[in-house]
Each structure stands twice: as structure tokens, then as C-alpha cells.
């Protein structure tokens, strides 16, 4: 990320880690699914033909751990694809502007920046018990630019970010008028 000369990064804002929990739980469930299915098929509830059970057990004995480790490797990579998408979506607040960097795919990244003078309005929105207790929510920044609004979904500590932006905007206004 290229900064201007003398520009300093004040804060880097990302989405709250709670947004990763649903995908994490899905992947944990998928990781446990083969074990659960195997236990079910081998139990009295499965009620499978004895020959089929024998074939299944033979396969598990020979290739079970190999197939499972390959399956887990794929799930591991899927988790890190999601984590990379989460981690590379960021909003950089410098002493001059806000840089909105959004990773839309591995080879698709959108970076927009807005100077503080362009900011007209900031709204924070915290909905529900989880967002209130974990202190995350949405941040809407209205601007005068081509793209009218920066929208930061599930931002960590949105109130603190809003106060920081407003104080930096005020400081920038004072410096310009001097």
C-alpha cells in the first residue's frame, strides 16, 4: 500500500473475528462428518448388509487415514482462503485520508481512498446482543466523492473508529485553515 510522503498510518480497521465463526463451524462439522457417518453406518442403527460393512471396514483399514488426511488438507486450505479474504479486507486510517481496500477474489482487489475533507457524515450501527457485547457493528461514511459511501460491515469497535475519524478530520480542518 503506497502512502504519500510524510503520511502516517494511525489505525488499521478490520471486520470483527466473529464473522469467521460460521465458516469455522461449517468446516469443523465437515471435518467430523466422515467420522460420524462411519460410526453411524457401523452401529446397529445403520442396519447395513454384512458384506457392505466388511467392504467399508476393509477400505477404512487400508485407506481410511490417508483419505481423511487428504480431506482435512482440503478443508485446511478452504479455511485459509476464507481467512485471507477476511484479513485482506481492511480500512487504513492515516493522518490524511481513509483507504478502503477490499479483496474481492484472489486476483481482484479494489482500493479506494477518501481524504478527510470529502467526509460529510459518519454513522455507526450496532444491532443485537452479540454486536453490543462484542463491540462490533457497521460504519457508514458518507463522502462527497464519486463513490458516495464507505461501508464497513462488522467493523471492530466502530464507535472508537468514528471518534478517531472525526478527531482526525477536525485536526485536518484546523491545519488547512492555518
Amino acid at each position, binding site marked *: 500500500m503506497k502512502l504519500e510522503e510524510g503520511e502516517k498510518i494511525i489505525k488499521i480497521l478490520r471486520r470483527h473475528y466473529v464473522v469467521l465463526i460460521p465458516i469455522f463451524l461449517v468446516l469443523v462439522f465437515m471435518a467430523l462428518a466422515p467420522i460420524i457417518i462411519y460410526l453411524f453406518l457401523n452401529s446397529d442403527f445403520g442396519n447395513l448388509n454384512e458384506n457392505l460393512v466388511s467392504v467399508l471396514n476393509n477400505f477404512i483399514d487400508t485407506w481410511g487415514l*490417508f483419505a481423511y488426511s487428504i480431506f482435512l488438507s482440503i478443508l485446511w486450505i478452504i479455511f485459509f482462503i476464507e481467512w*485471507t479474504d477476511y484479513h485482506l479486507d481492511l480500512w487504513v486510517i492515516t493522518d490524511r485520508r481513509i483507504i478502503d481496500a477490499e479483496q474481492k477474489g484472489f486476483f481482484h482487489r479494489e482500493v479506494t481512498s477518501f481524504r478527510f475533507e470529502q467526509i460529510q457524515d459518519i454513522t455507526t450501527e450496532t444491532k443485537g446482543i452479540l454486536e453490543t457485547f462484542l463491540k462490533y457493528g457497521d460504519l457508514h461514511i458518507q463522502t462527497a466523492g464519486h463513490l458516495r459511501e464507505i461501508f464497513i460491515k462488522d467493523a471492530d469497535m466502530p464507535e472508537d473508529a468514528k471518534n478517531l475519524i472525526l478527531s482526525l478530520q477536525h485536526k485536518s480542518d484546523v491545519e488547512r485553515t492555518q
Partner: protein
Amino acid sequence: MDYFNILDISNWDISSQRIADIVFMLTVGMSAIFTIIFYYHWRKYGMGGARIHTMEIIYIVGLILLIAISFITLK
């Protein structure tokens, strides 16, 4: 010249071991490609910090462990 019908599955001489070898090589290849993509993106756009360095280590250790287990269990 002998005629060989590739679509006739009984002509195929593929054992389960060979299939396992192919699956293993494909997984290693795919993992290598994704590792390069991940590290490129993390280093270029990740903005540094302890969190990303920790996740880099967790990722590579986990991946090596899983690949090692699949290699060891590959008969």
C-alpha cells in the same frame, strides 16, 4: 498395430495404490499452488503484524503435518 479402446474400463490397469499416488500428488500440487498464492497475498497486502506472522506459521505447520500423515499412510 493392436487396437486399444481407452474407453473400455477393463483395459485400464490402475490399482488402488496408483490412484492413491495420483490423489496424493494432486493434493501436494494444489497445496503448493495455494501456499504460493497465500504467502504472496499475505506479504503484499497483509500490512504485517504479529497476527499474520502467527497465522503463516499455523498454516504451514498444519499443512506439512497433514501432508506428512497422508504420505506416511500412503502404502
